[in-house]
């Protein structure tokens, strides 16, 4: 059986592969940054940012960036 597990289709162009790869890398990083062992160094109370404990601001920041990455990806796909 030659079919191997793959996440992306082999029919994608190099540019598509790069864009999807970059987006995937961000979301993997985002997930890791909310979990042990990447999150604990940022899981602190101070400084308070926008009135929130730093740990909560950190999660909000990841959520906002993830949203922006998603919007960028969608717009890039729509332009093509």
């Amino acid at each position, binding site marked *: 059986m030659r079919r191997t597990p793959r996440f*992306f289709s082999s029919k994608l162009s190099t540019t598509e592969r790069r864009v999807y790869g970059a987006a995937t890398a961000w979301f993997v990083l985002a997930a890791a940054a909310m979990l042990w062992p990447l999150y604990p160094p940022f899981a602190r109370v101070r400084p308070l940012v926008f009135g929130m404990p730093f740990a909560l601001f950190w999660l*909000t920041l990841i959520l906002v960036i993830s949203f922006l990455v998603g919007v960028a990806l969608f717009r890039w796909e729509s332009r093509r």
Partner: protein
Amino acid sequence: MPAWIVVTGVTVGYLMVSLAVGLYSGRSATKGPEGFIAGDRTLGFLILYFVMGASIFSAFAFLGGPGWAYSRGAAAFYILSYGTIGLIPWYAYAPRVAALGRRFGYVTQAELLAHRFKSRSLSAVLAVITLVAFIPYLTLQMQGAGYVFNVVTEGRVPHWLGAAIAYGVVLIYVYASGVMGVGWTNTFQGIFMMGLAWGLGLYLPFKLYGGVGAMFEELALAVPEMLAPPGLDAAGAPWSWGGYGSAIAISAIGFSIWPHYFMKIYTAKSEAVLKKTIIFYPTFQIFLLPIMFIGFAGILRYPGVTPADSILPTILMSMDLPAFVVGLFCAGALAASMSTGDALLHAAGSIMVRDFFCVLSPRKLTDDEQTRLIRFLLLIISAVAYFFAVMSNVSIVELLLLSYGFIAQIAPVLIAALYWGRATPQGVLAGLAVGCATVIAFQYNPAWQWQQIHPGIFGVLANLAVLVPVSLATAPMDEDHVAQFVVE
């Protein structure tokens, strides 16, 4: 006019609007299962956005979210985290699932998986797992509704009646309008609860502390341990990173798998609608911030409230707010409960008919018979959940934990179906069986839960460890058939 009459009036008004929206919206859909279950695959962005948002935010969000922040502090942050990444896998596979659905006429998750693996037993097994996972979930929503009614009417409406009224309304519009009823009521309910969460989440810290910043400043001095993740566990001792992280992981896995969300992939009008819904999901998710602020607001001003889940109603009832506002809260909490309960109920009936009865029936059921059977099952399933909600002492929370563990076992099956051509029916069935057994074993042996990691995670690992070797040891499936599903 006594306050409780105003409160009840606002709540009844909300219920009437939900009912009217739910009944009105069903007129356009066709009468067969494709219309009743998948809305003829015509849903646009706005409605799908609110269906996904409001189905996910259940009674747990409105009562449990503040309750967690109040009693367990930063442990509650996990509910903000899992939604950030939970829906992203859909971006990769949902467009293909939708295309396959259009081509082969699927309206449920198990139809896709059973067809891919050419296995009727897989369909029946998935239907049973789904039903077992849904009942406690639905029960919890009903209890939440009864509870809210009871508190805001100061005990005049007993739990059983409150749950019966709210779910009577749900049953009517789901029965009459199917997924269109679920969709349009969720849009109304979603806007309503979002507005209320932001309003209360910013107002309460302002009123009690002078602002969100001032509140956290005061909390940072008095109880810094409550503000630093992973927060506290249910007993009030420091929680572990394993418990916190695996709670995120199991919820995030469940997000893209829970059959009642998954089915909504088939309702989307187009690939662009589906992708936009996924991308905009975090804008809904962020309303958990004010939800958590509410719980944090209670810590210093209202110590010792039990159960912790009653912190929001407790604060509201003690603040001398206008009765109208309390009524709005009551309606908002009901909206949260009902917008989840309706999706569960609708999906449970649909799945049992399509994946269980249609598959096991010796002859093909007509479209008309299927819709009638779904409606009949809606009555039965509501009755069972209602029985557990008001009359039984079974620990629902424990059952719900098991539910999450079971549902997560579908994830390896789905991934194998779409990404691994060599996966075989024997492999996925064996994986499911071992995965579910592992979840039960770990659930009832807390000592085995290394680092307080959720039993579902151990289940997924065991599932994979069986799925792969058994697939490799059994005969591969027909390549042309499999190629229709797997990414090349």
